[in-house]
C-alpha cells in the first residue's frame, strides 16, 4: 500500500512523488490535501494534492525539503512504501463558473494550483495563471501550467528566469488594466498569500487562499491548525484549507507556524548526522 511509483526532482529543493492510492484517487478533488507518514516513528505531515489520476489510482504530491520528514521522504525510492497516506482531507476548491479568474502559485504552491486551474477551466472559466519563485531553478511545471490556463505569466524574484517580479506585480497590473477579474486564488508561502490578499483587497476581488498551518490528525480532532478567519476561530483541516484571504489573520498564522521551529531544528540536525554516518558506512 501507498507505494511510490514515480519520483522526480522538480527543483534542487523539491521532489515529486506519484503514490499508489486508488481509493484516495477515486475521491480526490482540487484543493484537498493528504496526510502522510514516511515511517513508523514519523510525524504526520499535510501535503496538498498536486494531481490525481482516478484510472491509474494515483495521487501526485510535491514536497519541499525543509525539515526532517520532507528530507526523509526525499531519500525514499520508487518501490518504497509510505507508512501511511490519509485523504482526501479538507474541503475541495469551490469550482463554479465565475468568469475570469486569476490563480497565483508561489514556489511549491505551483503544484496545488495545477488541479485547481484544470478544474476551473473545465467549469468554463477563463483562467489566468501567475507562477513565480525566488529564482529560475525553483520554478517547475511551466508547460503543465500552460496546458490548464488561458494565459500564463511567469516571474522570478531575482529575474534569473522570465520576468523579474514578485507575483503581486503582474497581478496588480492585471487588476489595474480594467479587465474584469471575478475571483483570485493564491497558494504558496503564507507571506506570499498575505501579500496577494493585500493586493486584491482594494479592488474588492474575492481572493481564496489555502492555509498551510501545522496539523496532526487532519480530521478536526486536535485543533493544532486553528486559524482566525473573519474574527472566528476555524480549523484549517476541516473548515479549510481554503479561506477568504481578506478575512485571514495572517500574523496569527505566521506565528503559529513557528511553534515548533526549535524542535524541528533538533530533529533535522539529528537526522542529518544520521545521514552522514550512514553515508560513511556506505548505507543509505
Amino acid at each position, binding site marked *: 500500500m501507498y507505494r511510490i511509483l514515480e519520483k522526480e526532482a522538480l527543483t534542487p529543493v523539491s521532489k515529486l512523488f506519484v503514490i499508489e492510492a486508488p*481509493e484516495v484517487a477515486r475521491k480526490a478533488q482540487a484543493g484537498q490535501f493528504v496526510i502522510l507518514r514516511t515511517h513508523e516513528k514519523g510525524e504526520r505531515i499535510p501535503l496538498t494534492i498536486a494531481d490525481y489520476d482516478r484510472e491509474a489510482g494515483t495521487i501526485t504530491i510535491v514536497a519541499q525539503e525543509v525539515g526532517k520528514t520532507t528530507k526523509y521522504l526525499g531519500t525514499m525510492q520508487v518501490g518504497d512504501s509510505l507508512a501511511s497516506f490519509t485523504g482526501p482531507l479538507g474541503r475541495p476548491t469551490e469550482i463554479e463558473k465565475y468568469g475570469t479568474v486569476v490563480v497565483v502559485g508561489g514556489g511549491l504552491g505551483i503544484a496545488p494550483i495545477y488541479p485547481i486551474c484544470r478544474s476551473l477551466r473545465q467549469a468554463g472559466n477563463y483562467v489566468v495563471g501567475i507562477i513565480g519563485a525566488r529564482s529560475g531553478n525553483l520554478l517547475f511545471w511551466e508547460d503543465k501550467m500552460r496546458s490548464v490556463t488561458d494565459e500564463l505569466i511567469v516571474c522570478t524574484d531575482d529575474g534569473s528566469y522570465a520576468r523579474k517580479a514578485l507575483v503581486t506585480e503582474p497581478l496588480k497590473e492585471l487588476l489595474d488594466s480594467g479587465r474584469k477579474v471575478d475571483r483570485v486564488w493564491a497558494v504558496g508561502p503564507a507571506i506570499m498569500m498575505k501579500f496577494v490578499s493585500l493586493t486584491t483587497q482594494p479592488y474588492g476581488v474575492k481572493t481564496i487562499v489555502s492555509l498551510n498551518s501545522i496539523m496532526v*490528525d487532519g480530521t478536526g480532532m*486536535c485543533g493544532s491548525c486553528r486559524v482566525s478567519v473573519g474574527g472566528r476561530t476555524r480549523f484549517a483541516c476541516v473548515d479549510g484549507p481554503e479561506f477568504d484571504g481578506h478575512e485571514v489573520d495572517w500574523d496569527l498564522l505566521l506565528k503559529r507556524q*513557528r511553534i515548533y521551529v526549535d*524542535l524541528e531544528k533538533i530533529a533535522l540536525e539529528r537526522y542529518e548526522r544520521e545521514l552522514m554516518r550512514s553515508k560513511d558506512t556506505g548505507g543509505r
Partner: protein
Amino acid sequence: MAEGKKKRIPRQEMPTQDPQERRRNFHEVALGYTLELAVAEANRCLQCPKPFCVEGCPVQVRIPEFIKALREGDMWGAVEILKDKNSLPAICGRVCPQETQCEAKCVLGRRGEPVAIGRLERFVADWERAQGMRIPERPAPVGKKIAVIGSGPAGLTAAGDLAKKGYEVDVLEALHTPGGVLMYGIPEFRLPKDIVMAEIDYLRKLGVNIRTNVVVGKLYTLNELLELYDAIFLGTGAGLPIMMNIPGENYNGVYSANELLTRTNLMKGYLFPEWDTPVKVGNKVAVIGAGNVAMDAARSSLRLGAEEVHIVYRRSRAEVPARAEEVHHAEEEGIIFDFLTNPVEIYGNEDGWVTGMRCIRMRLGEPDASGRPRPIPIEGSEFDMEVDTVVMALGTRPNPLVFSDAQLERTRRGTVVADPKTGRTKLERVWAGGDIVTGAATVISAMGAGRIAATDIDRYLRGEGTEPWWPEDGAS
C-alpha cells in the same frame, strides 16, 4: 469456605510506582496485584446472594461469580465469566470509575472499604494476557458484511462480537493506528498501549479486518458504505475538542487536551526526537477542567518536563468528575488544584506565546441542568496567574465529519439519536453506540453499547425485529 466473618481483611492496596519517580516517566503507575494480594482481596467478597455490585455495573458483569472462580484458583473460569459481559476487562479494570459504579454498591462499602473489584478485574485480565488469549474457533461464515466505523472501545467490542457470530467485519479507522481514544487519549502511564494492541491482535485473529487511514465522510460516505455492507455500526466517539472562546486562546502554548494527548500518546511525542513528532510544554502549565482527560493532560505535562502544573476548575473538589484514583495519583505527583477558579482571558507576548492567564473566583449556586451546583463568578475577584502553557480539557463533542451525506437524526449537542436498547439509529441498517450517542462518557458504557448493537445487528440480519423502533407517526 473459610472466609470467617469475624476476621476483617483490609482492602488490599495495589502496588504503585513511587510518586517522586513516576512523575517523570511514562511507565504504568499502578503495578497490579500479585496473586497473593488478589486472593486476599477476593476473599473479602461476601458473595451476596443478591449482588448489588452487578447492578452498579453498566454491563452487568457477574462480579461475585468471577471473584469466586478467582479465589478457588479457577482462573480460566474467572476469565470466561468476566468476558461474557465485558470484552475489554484489562482496559476497564484500569479506566472504569469503579467508585461510582460497582464498588459504590458493594455492601462492604457501607461500613468500611468496598471490595476492589476493578483491581481484581485487571488481575484476571492481565493473567489471561500473560497466558496468551484463547482464540475461539471461527464459526461458519454467515455471508454478510458489516462495517464498523471507529476502532475505540465501542467499535472494537461490536467488531469482536459480530466476528464471533460469523459475520465478515471491516473496522474502518481514520488514524494510522487502531484503538481510538485508548491509543490517542489515555496515556501510557495509565493504560499501556501493548494492552490495547493485544486486544486489536485478538480481533485480527478472530478474522476482523482492520483498515486504518480510512476517513469516513471523506474517503467513503455513509451512503456509499451502505451499498457495500449489510449493516453499519457507527462508533466514532466524541473527538472534537471544546474550547472556551475566551480572548487569547490561539496564542502559541494553548493546546486542546486532545492535541497535547494525541501528540504525546499516539505520536509518541514523549520519545522525541527518537520519534519525530514534537510536543512542547513550558515550565508552568494550567489545565482547565477536572475530568479524566484533564488529569491525563496535567500528569502528562509533568512527565514532559513541566515544573509546576495546575488543575484549574470552576467548581469545587466535591464536583470533580475524574476517577478518584486519578485525582489521588495526581495529588501524590504534586499537581496543584485550583478550585472555584475560571479563566477569563489568556495573555501573550509579541511573538505570540502565552505569558499568563486572568482568572476569576467562583462560588457555587443552585444546581443547574446537569444537577451540579452552578458556578457563579464573584465580581471583582479577578487575579492573574503566570503560566506559559494552557491546556483546555473542557470535554469533547462528536466529530460531524462522519455524517457528510447521511440523513442521520442528531440532537442539538451533535450526538446521534439511537435506541438505547438496540443502538439503532433512524437510518435503516445503521447502528450507533458509545460517545457518539451519549456524548463523552466512559469506556465501559461505550463497550456496553457496542455489545448491545452487535446483538441487535445480528437479530436484524436474521430478519427479526426489522420494524422501526420510534413511533411511526412522529418519525422524522
